[in-house]
């Protein structure tokens, strides 16, 4: 197992390099603004622009630029500078991380708890009115785009424009360290909006798997042993049906930590997603690189964690 994990970590590094090379290439292949011009500002002379081009190695071939980029990361922990904000990328990214983590973790707890609860109840009481209602709602939840749900939520509940103004709306984000209550107030709507789509998907996934599992021979054995139905469902059924949920959860959380772009934009939350969005709008090369690398990092680590956890959940899985 340890050897397996070490090998996977080495692969992570290789993947990260590949991701940044691809981002670089895409940036240069696709038409975009001239980074030097962006850095120099609106009224710069051609000479100033050339100076900047030289200073940031923008006049060098692509391979050289890549080399300088990686050299900076490895030797100085320097992920480059944001042309637009005139700040180190690493510092910008880290300053935005708490907001994204707030959104992702809160929503994750919400959707995991509700999705699992609804999934179990629907599976156990299959074809009941409750099952039919929740599964129809889940279909709506899966189909509704997050930005639309977000706008509807703001329209209904935001304390500035809402019909029932009870919760923090767009742009109400406060860091938890500064104003815990304000933070909570600003997070509730984004959490709910983000959780709806995921909870809908999770409940349907768990319902399907659990219904299948409840037909397995080992469930019949558990009943034949004389276990209470509750134990049969929770200890034998859910235990077996939960593995795909764990996989999906790890990957979803990993992807969200790299930036919950839509929710962050609709609710104007200063997280990684909005940072990436702004960076792309402004062709801010190193900032794009930084956010892409961070997202890639979270996704790859989430994959690794999921695979390791899987081996503990299912004793038949063993990695060599």
């Amino acid at each position: 197992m340890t050897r397996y994990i070490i090998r996977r970590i080495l692969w992570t590094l290789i993947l990260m390099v590949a991701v940044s090379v691809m981002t670089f290439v895409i940036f240069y292949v696709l038409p975009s603004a001239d980074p030097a011009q962006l850095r120099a500002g609106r009224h710069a002379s051609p000479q100033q622009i050339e100076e900047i081009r030289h200073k940031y190695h923008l006049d060098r071939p692509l391979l050289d630029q890549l080399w300088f980029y990686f050299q900076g990361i490895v030797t100085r922990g320097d992920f480059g500078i944001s042309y637009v904000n005139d700040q180190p990328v690493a510092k910008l990214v880290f300053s935005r991380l708490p907001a994204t983590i707030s959104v992702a973790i809160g929503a994750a707890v919400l959707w995991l708890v509700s999705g699992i609860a609804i999934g179990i109840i629907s599976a156990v009481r299959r074809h009941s009115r409750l099952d039919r209602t929740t599964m129809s709602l889940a279909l709506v939840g899966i189909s509704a785009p997050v930005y639309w749900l977000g706008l509807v939520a703001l329209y209904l509940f935001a304390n500035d424009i809402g019909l029932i103004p009870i919760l923090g709306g767009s742009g109400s984000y406060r860091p938890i360290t500064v104003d815990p209550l304000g933070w909570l107030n600003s997070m509730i709507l984004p959490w709910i909006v983000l959780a709806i789509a995921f909870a809908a998907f999770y409940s349907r996934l768990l319902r399907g798997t659990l219904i299948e599992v409840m037909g397995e021979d080992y469930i019949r054995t558990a009943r034949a042993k004389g276990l209470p139905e509750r134990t049969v469902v929770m200890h034998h059924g859910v235990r077996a049906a939960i593995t795909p949920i764990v996989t999906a959860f790890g990957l979803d959380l990993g992807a969200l930590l790299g930036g919950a772009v839509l929710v962050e934009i609709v609710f104007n939350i200063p997280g990684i997603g909005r940072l990436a969005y702004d960076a792309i709008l402004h062709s801010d090369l190193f900032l794009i690189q930084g956010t892409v690398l961070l997202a890639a990092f979270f996704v790859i680590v989430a994959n690794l964690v999921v695979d390791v956890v899987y081996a503990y959940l299912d004793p038949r899985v063993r990695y060599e």
Partner: protein
Amino acid sequence: MSTPLLSVEDLSVQFDTEDGVVRAVDGVSWSIEPGRALGIVGESGSGKTVGGLTLLGLTRSNNTTIAGRAMFGGEDLVAMQDEQLRQIRGKGIAMIFQDPLSSLHPFYRVGDQIVEAIQAHSEASDKAARARALELLGLVGIPDPRARLDAYPHEFSGGMRQRAMIAMALSNEPKVLIADEPTTALDVTVQAQILDLLDRLRRELGMALVIITHDLGVVAETADDVAVMYAGRIVEKAPVEELFARPMHPYTWGLLRSIPRLTGSREEPLLPIPGRPPSMISRPPGCAFADRCAYVADECRVAEPILSPAGTTIASACLLPETGRRSAWSGLAAGGDTDAAFKVLRGGK
């Protein structure tokens, strides 16, 4: 004979399906005394497994209609509340199944699964239950039981898994063990070991054994009495020696003639029973076996045969004359063919 431990009276199980009502078990009666072994034989779909599951309430659902009685310890399992029946499952009556790999939970250690069975019916501490699990694994002949306690089912061989299932079933010293095709998924050599084990345990522990199988060989080896099921009903019931020596039902003849005999010549062909069992949804009137019976008479398609004595210990559900059937089987057993038997049985007509 002592008083029956478990007595099934006119048990019927019907499933509501989209295609119609399936009469899986249709008026079945049998009983078993302590320490005895009853074999229930039949082909797939004859209702033998559904009957076993129904006794434990495992077929109960909104789509199932269960009628009749199953008396156990003075109480009716069919009418019993779910919670009361749950307490009998695994403690009064235990059951083991066909495929031991899929019947054990893949994610839990074998020892833990046995401990769970013990603690479902007692307040035993973890330590005491574990000690009991160890003892049970030893009892069913699993080598190095201490190490096996912490192994997962996929680390066991097929035979070992079925032994573990048996250990789990025995954990609360049930009075009745229902074994549903316990050897069907196993290698032939392992089959014999498992049957020997079941036989030994029945004698040592004095429990009653109901063995459900499609395999007459299994019945011959383990059962005292046999019930032959066809299309949801018992068509013949007898002590095992009697059934093999003097069967009175043409379906049983067919079963016996379709298995190879060591004493027979190699050229002797195996004789399959032609056709398929009737639909359990729209059952034609008369005898359910009529369409496949080589000796069918006109009345067989009209009247339903009921299980009635056809000798001192054998009961059979067939409308054909008893004496004719007796001599027809004598001919078949001596190596005669179906045509000769037909002449003996239906000669006049």
